[in-house]
């Protein structure tokens, strides 16, 4: 019998708030965080983005980090979410645990802001190592005492989902009794321009699955979970927030940026997550879609959903209409939103949707309250066809 992976803590920060309470409030009030940039300096300031409200200085003040220390914004956002997750779980400070981060941007904000200085003289040499993904996760770990293993997954927009899957493997295999896993990513000029060069950024707030959708809006933030072996959590009297019953990872192996028309990778990833959980499509009460708002993703994901669920597609929505596409962090942020939805009995709205598209499923655009959700799927897909899906369940007691 495989060790069961439960969730005892969750932390979140995004454009719709710092922490779980603020996030739930924004979602129930249908308040999107997508709007004008206030912190990132770019020539493309006309592009709507989901920027976290706090500046770097504000985040450092919140975390008690000296203002003069250079810290990647990705790490700052991550620390906020990891702190909230660990505090909720009430993990002992000295518990030997692992941190699995997920990021692609890493310290790119530092590199792009100091590029001239870094390339010409030696004054900024100490900042060069901060560029990497790994250094950003190491910086997060540095704020805590218990991490005896640290690593980072980097699969672009599915990084956090894969970090949660790896974290779950570390628990399931018996390597650790508890693991903190998720992802964080800040906005940078680098990837704003990158997505802009691919011409997949909408100049209006995004409209996932809508017939008139014209691309995604970038966002930023972090989402982390405390994953724990069930018995370990019960023994120390922790409150169990949910269960990670299954995870699936598959490769679309179709194109570096485009998803296949039949959504093969997405279909396989969702199917694997269900199979591991021992569930069928009919057991799924809600799907938090990858739903970026690009023409290609939403039609490909819809094809995969139709293949998996047939006519009986459960309620689907994309919370990227609230947060923007938080890229590497999205799997973590959306997993936390799924847990909050199960806990509080709501289905998040899919803002901006107006007109059905024959190529797309019809999302649960208005959202719902007062529902009971037992099992939800959370999708994260990425460049390179690195598609992953997490199956989260309500905790119904020890089986």
């Amino acid at each position, binding site marked *: 019998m495989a060790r069961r992976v439960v969730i005892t803590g969750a932390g979140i920060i995004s454009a719709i708030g710092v922490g779980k309470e603020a996030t739930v409030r924004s979602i129930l009030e249908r308040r999107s965080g997508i709007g004008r940039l206030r912190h990132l300096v770019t020539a493309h300031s006309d592009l709507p983005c989901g920027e976290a409200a706090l500046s770097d200085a504000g985040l450092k003040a919140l975390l008690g980090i000296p203002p003069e220390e250079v810290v990647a914004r990705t790490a700052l956002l991550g620390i906020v979410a990891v702190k909230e997750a660990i505090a909720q779980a009430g993990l002992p400070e000295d518990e030997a645990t692992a941190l699995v981060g997920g990021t692609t941007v890493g310290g790119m904000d530092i590199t792009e802001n100091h590029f001239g200085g870094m390339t010409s003289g030696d004054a900024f040499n100490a900042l060069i190592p901060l560029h990497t993904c790994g250094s950003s996760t190491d910086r997060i770990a540095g704020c805590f005492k218990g991490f005896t293993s640290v690593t980072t997954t980097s699969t672009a927009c599915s990084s956090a989902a894969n970090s949660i899957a790896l974290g779950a493997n570390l628990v399931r295999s018996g390597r650790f009794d508890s693991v903190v896993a998720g992802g964080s990513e800040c906005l940078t000029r680098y990837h704003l321009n990158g997505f802009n*060069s*691919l*011409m997949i950024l909408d100049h209006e707030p995004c409209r996932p699955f809508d017939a008139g959708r014209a691309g995604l809006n970038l966002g930023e933030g972090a989402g982390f979970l405390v994953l724990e072996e069930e018995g370990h959590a019960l023994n120390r009297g922790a409150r169990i927030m949910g269960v990670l019953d299954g995870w699936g990872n598959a490769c679309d192996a179709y*194109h*570096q*940026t*485009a998803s296949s028309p039949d959504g093969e990778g997405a279909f396989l990833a969702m199917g694997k997550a269900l199979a591991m959980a021992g569930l069928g499509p009919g057991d799924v009460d809600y799907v938090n879609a990858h739903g970026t708002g690009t023409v290609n993703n939403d039609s490909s994901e819809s094809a995969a959903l139709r293949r998996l669920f047939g006519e009986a597609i459960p309620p689907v929505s994309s919370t990227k209409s609230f947060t923007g596409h938080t890229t590497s962090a999205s799997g973590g942020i959306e997993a936390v939103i799924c847990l909050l939805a199960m806990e509080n009995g709501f289905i998040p709205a899919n803002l901006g949707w107006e007109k059905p598209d024959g190529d797309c499923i019809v999302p649960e655009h208005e959202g719902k309250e007062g529902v009971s959700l037992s099992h939800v799927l959370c999708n994260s897909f990425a460049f390179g066809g690195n598609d992953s899906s997490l199956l989260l369940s309500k905790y119904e007691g020890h089986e």
Partner: protein
Amino acid sequence: MEELILELKTKILEALKLQDMAPEDIDADAPLFKDGLGLDSIDALELMLLLEKNYGIKLKSPAEGKEIFKSVRTMAEYVSANRIK
């Protein structure tokens, strides 16, 4: 027109990193995408950049490029009619 076609072929090979091909390997009338040269949606974006950088032609969306990028000849015709540099 033939001169512009040759110029475009050279620029296409450079922009799309087709180092191992020569301009004469591209048939000016053959389709650039799918069955012809086998280019994809990212190449279409690179071709749009090529028009912008070299001829000052700015297309609004990849959809607009569909007719223009049918072959090197259709590209050349569009460039000579619309170039501003």
